[in-house]
């Protein structure tokens, strides 16, 4: 950003008085950027550096840098912590579960967002339908988690899903109590919450597509499905990528849903990376270890963010 500003300012100075413009190039951009830079360094850069520093220590939340232990936290994470990573089957560990989230949660949100966004476009009560789907986004995640704990309850008098299963003579199923089911149950709740955002973005981009290309395709011989799949969807590539990257980041850093619905259980079976950061620091009081997990998380997300920023910049250039 600074480079752009100085580049724009550079051609302006007249050769007659070279001194004045030169100084302008030097300090003016920094003056305008100072407030933002100040806030960024206090609330972003410094915490990141501090977290990395803490991750090389053994310590508690009160005294995070009690003892310098080098990369021991990292070594433990990838060799000795079954809750974070383990090589046995079934592999329910934070790293594996996060991978599951990244795939299922992201695909689920995009699929439902597209489904609602595109289908609602074709019905009369479009606004009502979208408003209903949008509601979860204004509910706090904590409230949504509590609601879903009730929805998944094994008691058919409380749990909506078990009540429905009971009607057809099945269940009750312990959605949050079985290691093989719990991740899918929480991911389902996550999809419910985030579909709203995906729907809003994707519906807007669908509406903005030139209607003529749809007509051209149907005259060209495409049925409705082919029009959507081969003409509409490819044109929505940009917004879909934005939603996908946002959802992958959400999946990696998710804390609240897991914390409130299962606290990572049963056993370690619904732990994910984001949740682990919180749990190790604030529940187990391992500030150093939790920070090390946070650093790993940052490293996992950095390339995604970098790529998304490039995409956005490319889109703006167009």
């Amino acid at each position: 950003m600074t480079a752009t500003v100085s580049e724009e300012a550079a051609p302006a100075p007249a050769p007659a008085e070279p001194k004045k413009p030169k100084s302008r190039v030097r300090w003016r951009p920094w003056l305008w950027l100072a407030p933002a830079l100040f806030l960024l360094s206090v609330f972003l850069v410094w915490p990141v550096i501090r977290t990395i520093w803490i991750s090389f220590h053994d310590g508690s939340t009160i005294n995070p840098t009690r003892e310098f232990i080098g990369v021991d936290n990292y070594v433990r994470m990838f060799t000795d912590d079954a809750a974070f990573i383990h090589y046995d089957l079934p592999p329910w560990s934070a790293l594996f579960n996060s991978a599951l989230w990244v795939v299922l949660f992201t695909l689920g949100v995009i699929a439902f967002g597209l489904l609602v966004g595109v289908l609602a476009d074709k019905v009369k009560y479009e606004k009502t339908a979208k408003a209903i789907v949008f509601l979860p986004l204004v509910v706090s995640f904590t409230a949504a988690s509590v609601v879903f704990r009730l929805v998944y309850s094994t008691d058919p008098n409380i749990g909506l899903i078990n009540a429905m299963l009971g009607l057809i003579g099945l269940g009750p199923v312990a959605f949050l109590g079985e290691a093989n089911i719990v991740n899918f149950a929480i991911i389902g709740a996550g999809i419910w919450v985030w579909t709203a955002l995906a729907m809003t973005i994707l519906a807007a981009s669908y509406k903005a597509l030139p209607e003529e290309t749809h007509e051209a395709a149907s005259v060209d011989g495409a049925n409705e499905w082919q029009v959507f799949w081969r003409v509409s969807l490819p044109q929505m590539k940009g917004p879909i990528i934005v939603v996908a990257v946002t959802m992958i980041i959400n999946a990696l850093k998710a804390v609240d849903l897991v914390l409130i619905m299962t606290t990572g259980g049963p056993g370690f079976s619904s732990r994910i990376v984001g949740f682990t950061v919180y749990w190790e620091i604030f529940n187990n009081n391992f500030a150093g270890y939790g920070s090390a997990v946070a650093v790993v998380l940052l490293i996992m997300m950095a390339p995604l963010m970098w790529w998304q920023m490039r995409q956005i910049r490319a889109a703006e250039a167009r």
Partner: protein
Amino acid sequence: MDGLTKIYEDGTLAVGELDLTIEDGEFLVLVGPSGCGKSTVLRMIAGLEDISGGEMHIGERLVNDMAPKDRDIAMVFQNYALYPHMTVRDNMAFGLKLRKTPKAEINQRVEEAADILEINDFLDRKPKALSGGQRQRVAMGRAIVREPAAFLMDEPLSNLDAKLRVQMRAELERIHGRLETTTVYVTHDQVEAMTLGDRVAVLRAVSAAKPYNLQQVGPPYELFDNPVNLFVAGFIGSPAMNMVYATLERDGEDLWASFADQRLKVDPYAIERHPGLENHTNEELVMGVRPSSMEAAEIAGADPDRAIHMTVEVDENLGAESYVHTTLDARPVVTPDIEELLADTGQTAESLGDSTEFVARISSDIRVQTGQALEVVVDTAKLYFFDPASGDRVGAKATATAAT
């Protein structure tokens, strides 16, 4: 291809009682001012718009409820509607791929169409990287490769600049001559209509008095020479036909049309072309005379019986000929037909003032100057007389039904 009666409704009637038969291999142009329903008709043929009444056939098949994809037609859209995420080649091949055409044949047809349209060089580019004229060609190519029963074109040249439009117009003519595919072409530009169409159908918006769109359909010269009403007469031809209120007077054997202190002797041929014109003597009619039916007296030879005296106000010299503008001291012709034509160019009856604009074409061998008096001779065999109330030409058969 047989198009029969089509009525379209969305609360209001957009297209009413349209009877039209399009011959195999014909180039038919639907022309009219904006809002006349011409695009709606085209979209009904394509199947993009529901048909709310009447029947439409393509060949022998009734297609009222047939999906666009089953109609075997190709359409060229005003904004080209190219698929932005596909290369030119894929754009053209899309329809064939959907029909599971063998790959070798797709390639061959795309190459052939690209040859015809001279777009071989950018087959692998995306539409974004093309100019307007090139996109236009790709849109044409996409239609051509399909080898459909008919082409539908919705103002395909309206987004091109004037020079390119003329060039593409010639190209379209060449392509149609080569492929001989039935084509229905929509435009608001009467010059395009006249130059391209084997036949031209003039449409106008439906009104309470006239709940049908079709005014007249026929070969271009027919519309030019024998317009059935003021609307067609005013719409076809550039510069537009002059209209002036005139009274017919009998003087012995002859009929004279008098207007604004001037008098023209009506040629017997004009009387013949207006059956029953004699019954309108001493009535006020609307007289039409095309600028091209006039010439300076200096060139044509003086003829007091057929002369109009005018004062040159504007002289548009085009090189070979010159359009001389003057105003006649007569109130301007204002009828529903004329008002509709004015609305299309953003004018109203009030903007005409209280005199009549009159344009004559003269050879540019005569140099005229503003303010100069000029005598022009009128070919009075080519005078037109219209009923001021209905707008119909005197003696013309009832319009829409006569059209087919």
